[in-house]
């Protein structure tokens, strides 16, 4: 009760603080030479109030204060403490409050970190960021207040969906949001810089760090979600092209493209229109992500029950922001025409530009696949879904030139590059194709596409390895990230080609045999845990000469009353053995799925390598200064 009130009133005062900030900013923008210190002070007060409000909600969760509606809907007294805390952002209201915390945190950090930049630019960025912040305040207080009061006070809460009670998913939203909301700073800053015609080399160097920070968090956030889906959902995959996954992939694609644009802008001072459009796109897509996931519009297998009316507010707000940014872009932006004529066909920036076009293509494919079903539902009220074949068919062929450009691009020079001393590029390409030919030769898959695809992935793989040895620490950040990407594509391809699975229904004591595996269901044990009852099955799996013992689990949660299955995964360096057990209502049979998935570990490692590249880039520059 007390904590809720503290939280609620801090939220209101936080909104009120926005007005002095705007007032001081406008006054400061016109008059003085240096930044008014009051702006920083008030930004800090606002941050403090929002954090206080967030802590108010966290403590309401910790002390299971069921007079708070959000706590009542999402918590339960028997839930472990860790999940009481993570339950704070496991729901719509709490996660939006977390958005607001990150929004105010980032603008405060921005003010501290941008001391040597133009004053007008800093003030204007604060103003644009305040528009977003006010929007979220109003949205939170008006339509999704996390501190609603219920009377009479219930004795027990409804509990958190057990599928969310998981360590990876507990930290997944904050990490993802740091990435999403990080793009808000890029958005505000790009609008400010466009208005002042400040898009320049200095600006690029400064904004690059913000792009890197949100890119790293977004990458890690997607990775966490993917790992969670892999072991918790029990489907044995890591990416399902589900709308909810797609909405996190789209800002990532835009942000990755932006990162490369900023590099060109930093070195060559062109592609500025690209950088502006992409910054706007990244933030818009992040907002869309929150909107689509939380509004219930998306028809997703991941969708949790939610409220469509809130969608309207975010949609209107989004519309205003897009309109504002396009207006600023067309009125204020002066394109860098004088520079663009010096684009040569064979140069680093051309290959970056080409791959940017490819990434935009991938982005549009994902966007169409995600939005088209919604569109069709509204227009023709036909219910459809777009499955993985759509994405595979449209993306995979274009990965081939994409990978090749990714391999060759970094070998070229800025401005203009010749073909001399590039013999190794051809030799490595032939070697890669040969290796891939021998791998694919004996397999029962589409020969031509797979050979070239695996060949191009190997090509990137070898070229980055060669660079490690020849160039050492020069450009190591780019090299590691590109190496990680080649490893990712290779692992995904091999994972797809060499996976095998067996699905059967078994009773305790029975066994099942096919030409490769034999599964024996040894026994089933029951355990009582704090907030669930656990049934552990014991299975022996024989393949050739080896025998493994795996113990998948079924959990029957008390509140809410839901059954979840916990996969048992035996991870080794090269392959994962994955088993899940599901109950079938009123039957003695259990539905068993056993999968052998090669290179799973490498998929996670390669994504970590990709984000490590970003991390090195972020710190290397500071070190070199």
């Amino acid at each position, binding site marked *: 009760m007390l904590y809720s009130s503290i939280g609620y009133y801090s939220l209101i005062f936080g909104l009120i603080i926005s007005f002095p900030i705007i007032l001081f900013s406008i006054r400061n923008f016109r008059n003085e030479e240096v930044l008014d210190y009051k702006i920083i002070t008030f930004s800090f007060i606002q941050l403090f109030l929002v954090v206080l409000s967030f802590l108010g909600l966290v403590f309401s969760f910790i002390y299971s204060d069921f007079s708070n509606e959000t706590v009542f809907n999402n918590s339960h007294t028997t839930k472990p403490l860790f999940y009481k805390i993570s339950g704070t952002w496991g729901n719509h209201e709490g996660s939006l409050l977390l958005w607001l915390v990150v929004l105010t945190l980032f603008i405060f950090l921005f003010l501290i970190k941008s001391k040597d930049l133009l004053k007008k630019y800093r003030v204007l960025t604060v103003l644009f960021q305040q528009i977003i912040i006010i929007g979220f305040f109003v949205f939170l207080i008006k339509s999704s207040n996390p501190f609603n009061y219920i009377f009479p006070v219930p004795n027990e809460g409804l509990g958190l*969906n057990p*599928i969310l009670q998981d360590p990876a998913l507990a930290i997944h939203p904050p990490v993802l949001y740091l990435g999403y909301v990080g793009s808000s700073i890029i958005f505000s800053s790009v609008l400010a810089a466009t208005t002042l015609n400040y898009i320049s080399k200095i600006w690029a160097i400064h904004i690059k760090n913000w792009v890197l920070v949100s890119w790293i968090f977004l990458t890690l956030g997607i990775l966490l979600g993917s790992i969670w889906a892999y072991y918790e*959902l*029990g*489907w044995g995959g890591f990416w399902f092209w589900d709308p909810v996954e797609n909405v996190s992939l789209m800002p990532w694609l835009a942000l990755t493209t932006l990162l490369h644009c900023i590099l060109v802008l930093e070195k060559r001072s062109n592609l500025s229109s690209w950088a502006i459009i992409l910054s706007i796109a990244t933030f818009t897509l992040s907002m869309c992500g929150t909107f689509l996931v939380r509004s*219930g519009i998306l*028809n997703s*297998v*991941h*969708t*949790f*029950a939610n409220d469509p009316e809130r969608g309207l507010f975010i949609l209107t707000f989004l519309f205003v922001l897009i309109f504002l940014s396009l207006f600023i872009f067309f009125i204020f932006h002066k394109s860098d025409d004088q520079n663009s*004529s010096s684009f040569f066909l064979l140069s680093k920036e051309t290959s970056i530009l080409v791959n940017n*076009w490819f990434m935009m*293509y991938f982005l*549009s*494919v994902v966007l*169409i*696949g995600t939005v*088209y079903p919604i569109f069709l539902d509204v227009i023709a009220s*036909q*219910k*459809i*879904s*777009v*499955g993985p*074949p*759509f994405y595979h*068919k*449209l993306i995979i062929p274009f990965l081939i030139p994409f990978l090749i450009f990714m391999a060759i691009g970094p070998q070229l020079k800025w401005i203009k590059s010749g073909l001399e001393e590039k013999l190794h590029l051809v030799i490595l390409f032939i070697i890669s194709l040969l290796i891939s030919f021998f791998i694919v030769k004996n397999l029962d898959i589409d020969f031509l596409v797979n050979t070239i695809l695996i060949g191009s992935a190997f090509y990137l793989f070898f070229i980055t390895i060669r660079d490690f040895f020849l160039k050492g620490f020069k450009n190591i950040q780019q090299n590691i990230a590109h190496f990680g990407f080649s490893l990712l594509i290779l692992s995904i391809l091999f994972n797809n080609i060499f996976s095998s699975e067996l*699905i*059967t*229904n*078994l009773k305790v004591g*029975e066994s*099942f045999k096919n030409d490769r595996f034999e599964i024996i269901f040894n026994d089933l044990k029951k355990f009582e845990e704090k907030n669930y009852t656990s049934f552990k099955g014991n299975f022996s799996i024989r393949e050739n000469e080896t025998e493994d013992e795996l113990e998948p689990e*079924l959990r029957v949660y008390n509140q*809410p*009353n*839901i*059954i*979840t*299955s916990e996969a048992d995964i035996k991870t080794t360096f090269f392959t994962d053995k994955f088993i*899940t057990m*599901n*109950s*079938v*209502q*009123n*039957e003695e*049979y259990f*539905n068993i*799925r056993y999968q052998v998935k090669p290179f799973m570990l490498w998929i996670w490692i390669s994504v970590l390598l990709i984000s490590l590249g970003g991390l090195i880039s972020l710190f290397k520059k500071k070190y070199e200064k």
Partner: protein
Amino acid sequence: MYGRKVKLRFFFITLILLSLILSVYLVLKSLEENVVYFKSPSDIQLLNEVKNKKVRVGGMVKINSIKISSKEVNFIITDFKNEINVSYSGLIPNLFSEGKGVVAEGYLKDKSFFEATKILAKHDENYMPPEVKAALEEK
């Protein structure tokens, strides 16, 4: 007649336009082939012909209709107006049970028999797929 710069620009614009047209064509063609339509048992009764194309069928699992063997599960999906027999071998989600909503993906053999290749999992016992809700409300 025209300067080199104009020619180059013209060349680039043509290239971009061509690739745009190509990609739009590819996307639309792929959409047409890979879209999965959602149907209720009543919609299926209204079909003129049964095509060999992937569809989703949604509704309620009829009470006392689940039959399981070591190879497959058989059950009936109903929208309380019409029903359809489903046979399925594959992963069964935990929230799949009698009297609850279900969405199955697969191929129609005829108007009363459906061979499912996937049963979609849901995360929340109170959650009803929007299509099923709409299909049930229509009756």
